[in-house]
Each structure stands twice: as structure tokens, then as C-alpha cells.
């Protein structure tokens, strides 16, 4: 009896399956959305892609799972390494996949400055709301009141709204979706890999940790998806974000979409100015 292979397998290293993720982990949804986008874009293999990740559960998505060049770097440093890769070989599509702790806490400075530079990277932030790999500590994205290993009496630190923060930088593309918005998330991946293929592109995926969030709440993954579906409100303009969030909902959507030249393009014109100046 033969079983049809899942479409995503062509992008994966068969030999390392199964994945290292907990049963029900939403990382699989993120991967599937990205792979589906790639398939629909006609990307057959990933030889022109380089995936860079840091430390954390979602940092294991590319390395070693994805059949592509990948660098599994230090905690927080993925964006910096990715910047080096992109500048040294601008031909490559460089994708960073990481968690909220990795990209925003320990790596927050790199994220901010890559966005400021409109660095030609696609950064995918899997927001699982906690530090999961280290067993459920407070993250900068943990909601208020949430109990974690390091806030056993309930979180009192207001969380950061990363997507909203990045809207105010030079980033070309900022989107946020929940794992319950599979189709829209896939569309965002497609946009960030084709239509807006330059500059800094940021996709946040709200994907609560199955072990340290969902199970703590006593819910099943299915219940959580249903809950997220109800909690997510798609906004058409950024002016609606605050209003949605005031109502305790999660604003999702494409918050920003521009086609400004990315860093690589700007550097090229800078370099030609440098060459002209030296010829004089």
C-alpha cells in the first residue's frame, strides 16, 4: 500500500524526521504555510535560500529540518548573521525564523536595526508567548497575568507589541497572523517572497506554545485554534489596531506594505558614489 507523500516533504530532510516538536506544536502550521507559499510560487528547491535561526523551539524549524543551507546560530544573533550572509552574497534569499524571546529580547537590538536599515531579509517571528525550550519562562510577549516559571504569581510586565513597533521603522513589510489564519498567513509568505521581495519583511505568527501555554490553560490544540479564530480581528489599516487591541482582541493583517529600496540596493548606489569619488 502506498501513501501519498505530504507536499512539504520536498522541502524537508527526510532523514531527520520526525520533527523535534511537541505533539500539536503550532510550528508545523508555520512551516506548512511557508512551504505552501513556496510551492504555489513554483519554488522547486531551496538552493537559493539560506535559513538563519537562533536558539529556541522555532529556531529548530530550519535547522536541520529544511533541505536548504541553514545556519543555526547563537541565541539572539540570527538577524546579525543573516545580515552578513545577505551582504556578502546578495543573490541569496535570506530567511530568519525565530521566536519572540530570541528575536525581541536577547536579539531585540539586531531586529530593530535590521528594520531601520530595511535590510533585505524575511524575518518570521513565531510568537509562542513564552520561553518554551527552557521550560516556560516569561517572554517579552507574555500577556499580563500569565503564569510562567518566572512569574509564578502572574505576569505584571506589560508585553511588547512587536509588529506595531516595527511599523514605525523603515521596514517594507509588516504582517501579523495567527496560526488560525492559515490561508492569510500563506498569502503573506507569498507576498514577502515575491511581490515585496526586497527590504525588511517581518511576519509575526501568533502561535501559543502548546506545552507551556495551551496545556497550562487546560485546553487542547483544537480548542485553542477555535479560540484564536474568535480572538483575531483582521484590520485593513493600522489606525484600527489600537481599537481592536483595546477590546482585548488580537489585531491581525498586513500592517505595512511598501516597495522602498532595500539596504542592498542603497549600498550599491553608495558604492558607485564611492567609486566615482575615488576616480576624481
Amino acid at each position: 500500500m502506498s501513501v501519498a507523500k505530504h507536499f512539504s516533504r520536498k522541502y524537508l530532510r527526510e532523514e531527520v524526521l520526525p520533527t523535534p516538536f511537541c505533539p500539536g506544536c503550532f510550528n508545523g502550521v508555520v512551516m506548512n504555510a511557508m512551504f505552501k507559499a513556496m510551492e504555489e510560487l513554483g519554488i522547486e528547491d531551496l538552493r537559493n535560500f539560506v535559513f538563519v535561526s537562533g536558539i529556541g523551539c522555532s529556531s529548530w524549524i530550519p535547522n536541520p529540518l529544511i533541505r536548504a543551507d541553514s545556519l543555526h546560530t547563537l541565541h539572539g544573533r540570527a538577524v546579525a548573521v543573516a545580515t552578513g550572509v545577505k551582504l556578502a552574497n546578495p543573490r541569496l534569499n535570506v530567511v530568519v525564523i525565530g521566536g519572540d524571546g530570541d528575536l525581541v529580547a536577547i536579539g531585540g537590538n539586531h531586529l530593530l536595526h535590521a528594520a531601520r536599515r530595511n535590510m533585505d531579509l524575511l524575518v518570521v517571528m513565531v510568537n509562542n508567548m513564552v520561553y518554551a525550550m527552557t521550560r516556560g519562562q516569561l517572554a517579552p510577549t507574555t500577556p499580563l497575568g500569565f503564569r510562567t516559571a518566572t512569574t509564578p504569581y502572574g505576569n505584571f510586565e506589560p508585553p511588547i507589541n512587536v509588529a506595531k513597533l516595527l511599523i514605525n521603522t523603515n521596514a517594507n513589510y509588516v504582517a501579523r497572523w495567527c496560526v488560525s489564519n492559515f490561508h492569510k498567513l500563506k498569502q503573506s509568505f507569498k507576498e514577502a517572497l515575491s511581490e515585496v521581495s526586497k527590504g525588511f519583511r517581518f511576519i509575526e505568527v501568533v502561535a501559543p506554545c502548546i506545552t507551556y501555554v495551551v496545556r497550562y490553560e487546560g485546553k487542547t490544540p483544537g480548542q485553542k485554534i477555535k479560540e484564536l479564530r474568535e480572538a483575531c480581528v483582521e484590520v485593513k489599516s493600522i489606525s484600527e489596531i489600537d481599537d481592536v487591541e483595546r477590546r482585548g482582541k488580537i489585531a491581525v493583517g498586513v500592517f505595512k506594505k511598501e516597495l522602498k529600496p532595500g539596504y542592498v540596493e542603497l549600498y550599491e548606489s553608495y558604492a558607485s558614489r564611492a567609486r566615482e569619488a575615488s576616480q576624481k
Partner: protein
Amino acid sequence: MVRALLSGNEAVAEGALAAGCNFFAGYPITPSSEIMHYMARELPKRGGSFIQAEDELAAINMVIGASWAGARAMTATSGPGFSLMQEGLGYAIMTETPLVIVNVMRAGPATGQATKAAQGDLMQARWGRHGDQMIPVLAPSSPQEAYDLTIEAFAIAEELRTPVVVLSDEFIAHGREVVELREKVEIPSRRKPRDPSEPPFGSPDPRIAPPMPPLGEGYYVIVTGSTHNEYGYRDVHSFETHFRLVKRLVDKIRLNVDKLFRYEVLGDDDAEVAIVCFGSVSRSAKQALRMLRSRGVRAKLLRLVTLWPMNDEVVRRELRSAKTIVVPEMNLGQLIYDVQRLAREDSRIVAVNKVGGGIPIYPSEIVEAALGGSR
């Protein structure tokens, strides 16, 4: 051959460019910034990449990324930045990433005296990273050597797939001297695996670095700072994988000591007095050697150009006859640990330690220490 009047920092930059450096990421810090200024001016017009990073953590990690993407990459910094870059260096060691890092030493710890020369980072250069590791450390004593050793550092980095430290100091960095520039430097291309079956992280002979697959050419290389097998797959549990990897990485440097260890010996073979030194202090030491010998003292100077890996045999041999060993250092005593380890037991070891204020160790102080007055 072109002769130029260059500061040590300019000489480092010239050396890097001569060695084919085409990527520089750095963060401003005294007294190394002029290296960055030079690269900022030169790289864009030569088709290379220059980026001012948001901090030193970013700088070293950008260099790592660039190196994997095929660039000959470097950064330059000083004490506080060198501290921040240690983590990245550890990653570069573990992933066998060629890169050159210049540390222009200033007086620390912390902010210390940013504009004043020191040699306090010797042990940090050797031991700064956590875990078992070793990387080559080269210490110039003049702008000429800053130029030559930067070229050398790139060659070593590429051949052994390792980070290499060039340990300069503020005196060398800001002092201007005559530097002979080479017309042409051989830039061998990086060895790639013959095909994806050749392991990028394993080598039957630990002295030979495995080939390095560049990104974007279909090798589907897996790079990780976690313990990995010879194909890059993470193995964070087994003893064998970890021991084999880390031992090979250390042996790669240690077993190449004959190739890597450079030193200079001057003076009498059967010297009673030996001066052991490195870096800019060696200049005073050379004059001190001449002063001692002109007074009829049988004396020699052992200058370490390569600090790590240290060739114990050479140091032991060169210090065999010495009854008195003077170790002048612009710190409170670091090189002296290895001298104590390698000198004969009955020798008198005299430290000359002076650091801060931009005041060098003078020849007379070394002579005085050699002739009796211990400090």
C-alpha cells in the same frame, strides 16, 4: 615594493585589503576605530562590503554570516568590544568559520583608559570563550608586523577554518612607522567539498581542516553551534560526538603548532639572562638586550610572535641556560604564567609590570630588573 608611513591601524587595514578582505563589520571603539575608518573608505569602491554594526555582538556575527557566504571577513575592536565578541568567537570556533579579529589592546578592565596602551587581554585572547577551545593569536610589535601578521592571519584562518586574533595595542595602533607593502599577496581560494558526500565538519587528520561548502551552491549545508557530527547534524547527547568534535577542533590548532608558532630570538645562545616578551614592549626589550650585552652580560631575548598555540618545546629550549628571566608586560603579569611553567626550576623570574597612563616600559627598567632589583 612600496614603502609607506603608516600607523599600526592603517597597516592592519592595508594588510587586510592585500589579503583579499572584502567584508568588514565593526563598531566604533578607541583605539581601533581607524581600522574601521580605513575599511569604510576603501571597501565600497573596491566591490567589498562595509557595515557599521549596531554593537559588537552584531559585528562579529555579521562577519560570521559573511564568511559562510564566501567573503574574507574581519572585524576590529578593543577590550570592551572584544569581551562582547567572545560569544561569537566561540560560535566561529565551533562552526569552523574563518575570520580575522583584531583586538587593539587598551587599559582595562571595563572602560579603563580608552586611549592608553596595555597588554591585559593576553589571557582573554587565549581563554575568553567558555568550553574547550583554542585559536591562533598573533602579536605584532610594529606597524610593519601589524601589516604582515594581518596577511598571515587571513592565510591561517582560511587554511585551518578558524578565527584568528591579531593582538595589537594602542602604541602600535597609533604610532606611525615605515611599512613595506607587498606588491602581490597569494590569495588561495577556499577548498570546497568535492561533492555533498564529503563531510564539511569532519576530517580524518585533525591537522587538516575539512572543506567548507559555500552557501547558495546546493550543498545544503547545516551549520550549528550545537555539538554536531561531521555532516552538521546536531547531536547534543552522545559522548563520542562531542568528544570527537571538540578534540579535533583543539587539535586542529594544537597539532599545527610547528606551522603556527613564530618567534624571534636575539643575543647569546648560552645566555644567563633572558628577556621574554611580546608585542610593543619587545621594542624596549630589544634595546635593553643591547644595553645588557654592552655591559658584558650574556643575555638573550625571546619574543613570541605567536602567543597561542605556544610551542612549549621551543620556549623551554630557549630558556634552558637562563638563570634570570625578565618578563616585561604592560599588565600585572600574564605571560609570566607560561614562563614559570616552562623555565627551569632554579631560575629567578622577574616581572616588570606597568600599565596605564600611556607610559611604556622603558629599556632601563628591564635592565634594572635583569641586574638585580626585582620589582
